[in-house]
């Protein structure tokens, strides 16, 4: 007598890739704009990037319904924080909040693969990468989503993330300048689009600096 299994799943994967790179005084967060289901495309123009605070931007791939719900919860919690503390949340604080929010649903997780990018209290770029249940780490760069397996090894090659075992302890921040980082992001997405069917259409790039946020859009292959 084999166990009865559900004939439907509460989850779906809408595909897509998210990348973030931290610099000395900037942070680049990028994601493609294709939303898929199965082998079909739902839309070519869906933004996976969401500004949570002045200095914290979230980019998530996975099940977009869960991503939307997660974004709404974090936005509301941020409003409460602002009322209580009379200031915006810092990126490290938001990182912890995101982790707690994800773990809260440990036994029915948000199907969201998150990358949080922003500026820390000292104005330096920071990137936090997550799994679906809230395990997170501060890193110099990260990729999540359907194209992550194609992009991550290339970023490792280019950005030479220092091993935490090396002494003296080195910064996770990349030495790249902002235009170089943006160029790198465009390159990796162009490559990922070639081989990953779920990545393509358009690339949305958000550049976070102390004076504000700039957005750039670039076309990708639509096949």
């Amino acid at each position: 007598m084999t166990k009865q299994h559900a004939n439907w799943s509460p989850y779906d994967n809408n595909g897509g890739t998210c990348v973030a790179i931290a610099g000395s005084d900037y942070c680049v967060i990028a994601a493609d704009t294709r939303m898929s289901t199965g082998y079909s495309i739902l839309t070519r123009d869906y933004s996976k990037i969401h500004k949570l605070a002045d200095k914290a931007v979230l980019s998530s791939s996975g099940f977009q319904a869960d991503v939307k719900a997660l974004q709404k919860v974090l936005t509301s919690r941020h409003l409460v924080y602002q009322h209580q503390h009379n200031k915006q949340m810092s990126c490290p604080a938001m990182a912890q909040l995101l982790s707690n929010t994800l773990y809260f649903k440990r036994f029915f997780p948000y199907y969201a693969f998150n990358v949080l990018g922003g500026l820390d209290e000292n104005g330096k770029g920071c990137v936090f990468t997550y799994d679906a249940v809230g395990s997170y780490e501060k890193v110099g760069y990260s990729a999540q989503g359907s194209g992550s397996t194609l992009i991550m090894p290339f970023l490792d090659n280019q950005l030479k993330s220092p091993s935490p075992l090396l002494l003296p302890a080195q910064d996770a921040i990349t030495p790249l300048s902002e235009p170089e980082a943006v160029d790198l992001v465009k390159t990796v997405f162009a490559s990922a689009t070639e081989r990953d069917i779920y990545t393509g259409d358009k690339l949305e790039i958000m550049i976070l600096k102390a004076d504000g946020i700039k957005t750039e859009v670039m076309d990708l292959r639509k096949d």
Partner: protein
Amino acid sequence: IRAHIRPFKEKTKASKRKSFSVQTLLRNKDEEEAKMFRNQYDTDVTTWSPTGRLFQVEYAMEAVKQGSAAIGLRSRSHVVLASVNKAQSELSSHQWKIFKVDDHIGVAIAGLTADGRVLSRYMRSESINHSFTYESPLPVGRLVVRLADKAQVCTQRSWKRPYGVGLLVGGLDESGAHLYYNCPSGNYFEYQAFAIGSRSQAAKTYLERRFESFNESSREDLIKDAILAIRETLQGETLKSSLCTVSVLGVDEPFHFLDQESIQKVIDTFEKVPEEEEDGGEAEAEAAAAPAEQGGAGDQDVAPMEM
């Protein structure tokens, strides 16, 4: 225990009523007696007085009158909330009386500021939950009804007490700018302009003279009128930007406080020409040697719980 015997005395008198004219005579007497027995029906919020009043609720409204002044005005597109910054002593900071509820709603309070803080938190929570569920800003009119219902609950539970704070809720919705006043009684009213708290009558008089033009006022004129109304409540004390807090919200302008510089600039526009103002007391105020001390001494009539 002996005190409970008295009401029965009243009732026996009432039972002696016969003709209508005799009734009227005796009813007046009852009211007089009710005034004497006011403190018999005022212990519980759930006890009616013989004349149909809930004294505890009325006492709560008195608490609002004890707080320092708060003023609200609105035009078609903007709402200005202003309050007087009274600190308990020179050593302490002043009590915050104006709170942001959301980008499109602000509230100014007078009375027990602790109660006001709690209600502001409630309003913020309601606003956030509404935005979360409906992805749109909570209309002010809905918020004030919920606030009023919350206040009403406290007038009908024996284990609660009414909130001792009056709230001037200013906000923007699809039909324009609105200003409401919420009482501890659970009533709420919409206003073009209103003032609450101690010495608010002076501000109300000023606003009554001008309110008909407020709907078409520009944002700057509205702010100026608010500060002038605040000046009325200060009654002779020199108006300084450190004495008042002013907040604005409007179409395309989320709720925010005006900084001291902006307030001082507005004050400077009318403080320099005292003879043009209707209130001739302005010149006398400027001549006053120590206005700050004057204000501090006059503050002893403000109830301690306001601070």
